[in-house]
Structures are given as C-alpha cells and as structure tokens.
C-alpha cells in the first residue's frame, strides 16, 4: 500500500540496501516473504507528546498511571512503564511494534529543548523531530508588532538551529503570555497584555516567516479557545486568517488535534459537533491540513502548552493540576482525565473526531492522531483505525455511549469507510508529505527503508466486517523494517537501533544574520535567566543528527 506512488493493493517486491529502498538487489539478499500480508511504509505520527519537560513532569505527577502497565527487562530491551505517559524506552518499543517508524514531539519550550533532545535520544528505534513553540515568544511578538517580518525570520531561523527544531509551533497565541498574569486570550483580535499585538498578527506573521524560510512543514497551530464550547468558529477564522498569504499547492497552516477546537454550542449542556462546518471549510480550502485528536474511552493525561486551558479543566473536574510557565516563551499544564462513554460531553467529543475524518474528503489533508496522550495513548491507534474503516465498529461502539450525544451527532448517518490505502495515507503518506520528509511515508526508490508488514490480507479481509482482525494485526506488526534492519518480528522487538533526530538547519543571508545577532545579544540577558551561549544546543548533543538544509533564497 503505497498511495504516495499511486500503488493501492498491488503485489510487488521491495528491495532494500544500505538503509534505503532501491531498484533491485542481488540474489544473495535476505528475503522476507510478505505474501498475503498488508505492507505499508512505516508509520509517521505528526503529533504526539512523547518527550520533554511537560511529558516528564506528567510522569512525575502520575506514578499511578504506570503502576500496572510495565515492561520487564529482556536481553534486548530495557524495562519501563507505559499507559498514557510511557517511559522513553517503552515509547520507542511500543511505536515500533505497531509499525510506526517516525514520531514528532509537537510542543517544545525552546528554553528546555535540551531536555526534549535528551529524552528523544533515549527513545529507541524511531526517527523523531520536535517543534519549538513560538506563539507566545517575546522576541517574536515584538518583531511582528513592529511589522519586522524579516527580523522575525532571522530570529526563527536562529531558534530552529539553536534548539534543533523542525517547525514553527503555535499554541494559544498570546493566550499563554496572558496566562502568565492569570488571564487568557479569547479571540483572534484581542490584544496581548503589554505587547502591542493580536493572535491574528502572530499567526500571519509566523506564516510569512515560514514562507520566507521555506520550511518543510506549515505553521502547526493549536488555536485560541481550545476546549471551549462554540470554539469552532474561532478555528475557522484561524484557518482563514492566512488564506490570502497561502501559496498555491502548499498547506499554509496545520490545525492540530482539531476535535478539541470543533465544538459548537454555548456551554457544556448544549455542546454539539462543529465537525461539519470545519470539514466544509477544509474541503473548500486547500491551504489547510488538520489532524484528528481522537479521544479514546480510557483514563489518560491531558498535557499542553495551553496553560490557561488546563487550569480551566482542573477547575471543571477537580483533579490534580500541574502548571509550569516558561520565561519569555510559553508554558505548560497537565491534568489527568477520564473519558467516559456515558458522559455526554465525552461521547460528543468522540463523535467529533471521527466526523472530521469522515467528512473531510481528501485523505491527504486529514491525519489520524489522538494528540497522545490528550485524547488517549498512541497504543489505541489500531482501535481508531477500526472505527475509520468500519461503520459496524462505530455502531457497536455507539451502542454503549450516551445516547443523547449520539442522537445529536452526525456520525450515525455517515456511511463512509476508509480503505486500506486511505489508512496508509492518513497515518503515513500524508503526514510525511505534510512534514516535507521526502524519504518517508512511501516505498519508492530512494525512500528510507522503513516498512511495516501487518498480518492481514487486504485482498481477502473485508475491514468493514472484520475490523477486529485488522485491529489485531495492526497492534503487533508481523515485521517492521527500519533503515533496512528488521527491528520487529511477530510483534516483538528483534533489534534495537538508534533513530535519527531531524531538525531544520534554517538560515538567512549574512546581513540579516548580523543584524539579528546584534539585537539578540542585547535583549537576551534582559529576557532570560541564562546566557545566550548556554541556550544554544550543539549538534553533537543529538545522538544521530539529521539536519535538513532550508532557508531564505540567497539574493
């Protein structure tokens, strides 16, 4: 199944050598017989909170999360714990067992990026990258308030190089800075206290910067008002606010975990799905991509840079609350959560995620995620796949849910069922393309030899009826190959290798760089409690550094 190369359900040979997919190999090559099995590129997860300061704070906050879900040390693997906030070794192994070979950590506070990389270094097998947060950054807000997009671009380039980051992440733009005074931002045109700027200007400015630097991925946005009934209209406005500066043929903005920002209604009792409106906009506007943020009915952990949202969630539910504001940059909040089938709000949320996936017609612009662990642990992906592929599976699930919510949802009337090719698209081909990872997400010549082989025969199995077989097969892959090495066999780790960390070596022309350094040095000491020299992360800090060269076209 290689939708990026137009291959859907064809029997083919795949040759690998030197960690890459090649045209052919000699007859002495090792042969894996994947007859009657489903073969896809290795999974590419575009948004999963697996490493860094808030992930670790969550581990420390919630020992109860891992008490019953642990993995023993084996001759090949390290011990660890799992459930919603797995330890790093366990994270790598569990992704690999499911056939995922690339995972993005989507929200990194730049001041603590070193921590993220330490954890990523300790996350085995998979390739990874991280997105530094920019939406509440003092330098960014000041540059953009002045209208100095060039200066901002030079700064963002420096930040990506210094923090070894991959893309521009924006979370509740302006809202987290407001939260540092205990407030929040509720609309695109609200003023950020003490900064002469609005969320609209932050998003547009960073979108321009993204274009200027020719970064491989669009700006990755968690809009204002996440989790608030009625927020769907703000999400549409957010998507729309960069429409006029979008380039043809490229996404200009990615909306993360869209379920959480697709709420219609005035309050919790009148909560409805806004998925139809969101999907309608996405269908009509090619400059947008979104990912699902599907919830799973389980106990899990919410964690986000959206500090004020987590405080509200804590006040709503009364569960313990962790908050960590980061100077001059961003913040974080963590609250444990339990999603219940019989709960009206949770059942509605469940429906929203799936409605988004079923109503957005182009599988190249909607991606499957649970915003791990916010919607649920990534180990639940096979379950989400079964819901996408089978109306029967959805109906079976809906029977056990709050019927009031289900009655009011669109989902029961949606008959669409994803094909294997579409699943391959939303879990690997499309995400790799959206990320600009040219050698990932496909099985053509030159691609990284990352292959997932599942024990289910797509020519014989009807996923609509036999969704359980699909779910089972995708939980534990038959074989997983990473860079040409067999890392998983029969659902168990067969070999542990170290994955690469991708980052963008963004650059700007010399004169812009000189100007930046002058301005930066002056301000750095005023803004931060560490020295600029100590902020920068050296390349050899990454266990396996994989830089991608990108930047402003030289004049």
């Amino acid at each position, binding site marked *: 199944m290689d939708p990026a190369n137009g291959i859907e359900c064809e029997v083919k040979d795949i040759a690998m050598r030197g960690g890459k997919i090649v045209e052919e190999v000699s007859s002495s090559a090792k042969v894996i017989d994947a007859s009657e099995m489903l073969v896809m590129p290795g999974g590419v997860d575009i948004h999963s909170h697996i*490493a860094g*300061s808030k*992930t*670790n*704070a969550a*581990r*420390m*906050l*919630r*020992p*109860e999360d*891992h*008490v019953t879900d*642990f*993995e*023993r*040390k084996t*001759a090949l693997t*390290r*011990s*660890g*714990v799992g459930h919603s*906030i*797995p*330890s*790093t*070794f366990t994270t790598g192994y569990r992704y690999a067992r499911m056939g995922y070979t690339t995972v993005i950590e989507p929200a990194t506070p730049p*001041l*603590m990026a*070193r*921590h993220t990389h*330490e*954890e990523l270094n*300790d996350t085995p097998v998979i390739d990874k990258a991280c997105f530094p947060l920019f939406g509440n950054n003092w330098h960014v807000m000041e540059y953009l308030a002045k209208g100095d997009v060039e200066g901002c671009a030079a700064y963002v380039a420096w930040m990506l190089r210094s923090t070894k980051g991959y893309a521009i992440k924006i979370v509740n733009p302006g809202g987290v800075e407001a939260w*540092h*005074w*205990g407030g929040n931002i509720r609309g695109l045109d609200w003023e950020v206290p*003490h900064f002469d700027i609005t969320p609209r200007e932050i998003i547009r400015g960073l979108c321009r910067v993204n274009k200027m630097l020719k970064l491989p991925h669009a700006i990755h946005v968690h809009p204002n008002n996440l989790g608030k009934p009625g927020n769907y209209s703000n999400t549409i406005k957010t998507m729309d606010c960069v429409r006029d500066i979008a380039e043809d043929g490229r996404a200009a903005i990615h909306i993360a975990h869209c379920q959480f920002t697709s709420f219609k209604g005035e309050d919790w009792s009148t909560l409805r799905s806004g998925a139809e409106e969101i999907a309608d906009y996405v269908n009509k506007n090619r400059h947008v991509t979104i990912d699902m943020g599907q919830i799973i009915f389980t106990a899990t952990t919410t964690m986000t840079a959206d500090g004020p949202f987590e*405080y509200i969630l*804590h*006040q709503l539910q009364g569960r*313990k*609350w*962790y*908050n*960590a*504001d*980061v*100077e*001059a940059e961003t913040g974080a909040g*963590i*609250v444990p959560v339990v999603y219940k089938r019989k709960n009206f709000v949770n059942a509605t949320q469940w429906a929203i995620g799936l409605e988004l996936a079923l109503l957005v017609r182009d599988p190249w612009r909607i991606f499957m995620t649970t915003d791990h662990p916010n919607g649920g642990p990534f180990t639940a992906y096979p379950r989400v796949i079964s819901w996408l592929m089978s109306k029967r599976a959805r109906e079976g699930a809906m029977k056990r849910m709050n019927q009031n919510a289900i009655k009011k949802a669109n989902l029961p009337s949606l008959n669409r069922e994803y094909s294997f090719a579409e699943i391959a698209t939303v879990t690997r081909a499309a995400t790799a393309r959206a990320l600009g990872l040219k050698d990932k997400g496909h099985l053509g010549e030159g691609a990284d030899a990352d292959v997932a082989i599942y024990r289910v025969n797509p020519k014989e199995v009807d996923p609509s009826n036999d969704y359980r077989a699909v779910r089972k097969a995708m939980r534990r892959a038959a074989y997983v190959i990473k860079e040409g090495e067999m890392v998983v066999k029969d659902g168990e780790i067969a070999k542990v290798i170290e994955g690469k960390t991708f980052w963008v070596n963004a650059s700007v022309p010399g004169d812009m760089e000189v100007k930046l350094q002058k301005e930066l040095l002056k301000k750095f000491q*005023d*803004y*931060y*409690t*560490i*020295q600029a*020299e*100590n902020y920068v992360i050296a390349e050899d800090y990454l266990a396996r550094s994989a830089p991608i060269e990108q930047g402003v076209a030289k004049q």
Partner: protein
Amino acid sequence: MGEESVIRNVVCPFCGCCCDDIELTVSKNSIISAKNACALSQAKFGSAREERVLRPKERVNGKFSETDYERAVRRSAKILAEAKYPLLWGWSCTSCEAQRVGVELAEEVGGVLDNTTSTCHGPGLLAVHDVGESTCTLGEVRHRADLIIYWGCNPVHAHPRHMRRYTVQSEGRFRKGREERKMIVVDVRNTEAAKMADEFIQIEPNGDYEALTAIRTCLKGEELEQEVIAGLPSTRFEKLADELIDCEFGVMFFGLGLTMSKGKSRNVDAALSLVRDLNSKTKFLAMPMRGHFNVTGANEVFAWQTGYPFAIDFSQGYPRYNPGDTSGVDIASRGDCDAALVVASDPISNFPLEAAKGLASVPIITIDPHETPTTNASDVVLPSAMVGIEAGGTAYRMDGVPLTLRKIIEPPEGVLQDTEILSAILREVKNLNGGR
C-alpha cells in the same frame, strides 16, 4: 609568566541555582579566580584539588590498599552482581550522562536506584503526586513577581545568589527592583533571610501545617476559630491571606523547613494546595529550593527512563516505586540491602544514624572525587573527576532548565570520569551476568 585564560558563562556546580554567568580565570590547569561566584561557588572552584582521592583503593583484610581501576571495577562489579538487593545511591552531584548509566546499572543488577531526593525534597514530590504543583521558571519570578515568600528555607546560606539573580533584588521586565517587590519570610528562627524581609513571620516549630491551613481557611472566606495558631495570633494569618490575595504575581519558595519538619509531605501538600487555591484570586506559583546542582536532573533522568523520580526498585525486573518501602534511607535502616554503590554523595554523613549503620554494615563501593566518611567506610573507592570542573555534562536547574556543565581543567593525573567508571562497571556486570 603563566598563560592565563578566561572562560565565561560557566555553569556553577554547587546549588540548585546553577548560575551560568561564572567567569573563571585558569592558569596551568588550575582555577585562579572566579568572578560572579558566591561564597559557596568560590569555595568549590577554589578547593577543587583538596582532599582528593587520587588512586583507586580497596579494603583488604580490613585495611585500605591502593589498587588500579581495572581491579577496582572488577571487584565492584562482582559485589553488585552477586548482591541480592544492592542499593545504588547518590547521583545528585554528577551529570545526567552518568545518571543514565546508573539507571542501566541498577536495572542490570536488579537493585534499588535512589538519589538524595529521599533525604531532602522527597516529601515535596509525594505532595505533588497528590495535589500537583503550579510553578514556573526563575525568569518568570524575575520579570513579574511583586510578592516573594521564602517559607522554611534560608537562601542567604543555601542559595546565596538566588535573590539577586532571580527574585527580590533582581530586575525584570515588569518589576524594576527591590522597591517593587515585597519579601516575606516564614520560619521558626530569625535567619539572615528573615532580617532582609519586609515581613518576618516567626511560627513555632512544627507549626507549618497549621499556619498554611489557616491561610487557606481565610482564603475560602471562613473564620478562624482559634485565637492562637502556630504560636501566633490568628489575626496574623488573616492579614497574610489578604496580602497574598492582593498581590499581582506571588511566588512561594520552600525548603526543608517544610519537607523535614513534622508533617513532611503534608506540609508541602498544604503549601501547594494554598498556592493552587490562590490561583482563583490572583497569579501564584511555588518552587522547591533544590539543594544540589543536579538533584533535579537525577529526578528528570530517572523519571523519563523508568517512570519514577527516585526510590526505584528493579528487583523484579521492572521499575517499582513505593517511597518508604523502596527508598534508600528506609532500606538501609531496615538492613535490607546487602551491598551499596554510592556515587557523588556522602550518606554515611547525611543519613539518619540507623540508616548510616545499616549502610556501613554492608560492602560499599564509592565513586567520588573526595575523601569522605563514606569513602572511609567503603570496601572499594574509585576516584572520579569533579563534574562541572573536570568533567562536562548536563545538569538541571531547580526550575527544570537544563544547562551544560563544562570541563574547565584536567582532573588529577589518571583520574577518570563518573561516566567512564560506571560504564566499565556496567560492562563487567553484564559479562558476569552472561547476557541474561
């Protein structure tokens, strides 16, 4: 005549402040002077060569005799591999890179991995498990705080540059200096910090829980029924509650006055709950005054690799966590461990007597730069380079900000780094275990 060089932006490896603006003048592999360094920092940098263990040594027939790393490593590995329940203790004064090897070693020998959190801010972490924490990085305090409380801690002694760099005497974007901030100290004695405060509240020893609860009571709009609370008139706490609500941005720093007085984790629970409650009225945060320069790092490394921040038992082949049961002090007090590896720590000095006795009764392997009562009680001593001076690595500041420590000078001739020593022991243990 000596060639001098100046190294700037050095991270100090002493306390949890991890000041990274130290300027060292170095000549002929010796640190001559340290600029921007507090008294503790000066002492550490200046005395780097004093009381060092220079050669590995092992106890033979009750007496120490000099040996080499190879023999010392082999003997250490044998002790650990053969032990049924070894304790691997310390870790707070070495690098994250060394801590990572430590985790693997503890897992390999099926022992208990614990760091000095157990004797220090452990109760605070237990409180966080229960109620969470509202905190921030130190720059947030510098920029915004108009009210700073030091409760049960004395930064003048333990974190000398804390106030100037990060809090009361610092200059931030929104607070220009001391005059725009209020400092409150709550303590059982009139310390140097108390003398600097705008307000000093002297509560009676072991009165912290009541004091904190009294403030929370006022916050919720309830009346205090007692006339005297924690040795003070209850009106004192009514007034304090009002002050806390009135501020724009308050921060409470706390120390062993809370974690190690009567109530322990419940004291911190009360403090963190108060801070959380205050967020319904204003912006308020809390931060523990972590003592060692990398105890935070030990928590971080342990947590991301095992899921738990300290007191991790690997005896069943996977990480188990139950402080009180799996914590080093308790294990040593009960005499449950049958061997110990001590890294960059001096538990014989710092443990309660029962625990120190328990530790001293089993074979101890110590990896440390200096002669200490623990090295004197050990069976094997492996000298190591001082992290942050003779060896580089990562450390985490008290607020979780990661920084890179540097190698400024060479260690004494032949002395290895913690990472090298631990890796050698791990290799040898794996050999002995035969790849189980």
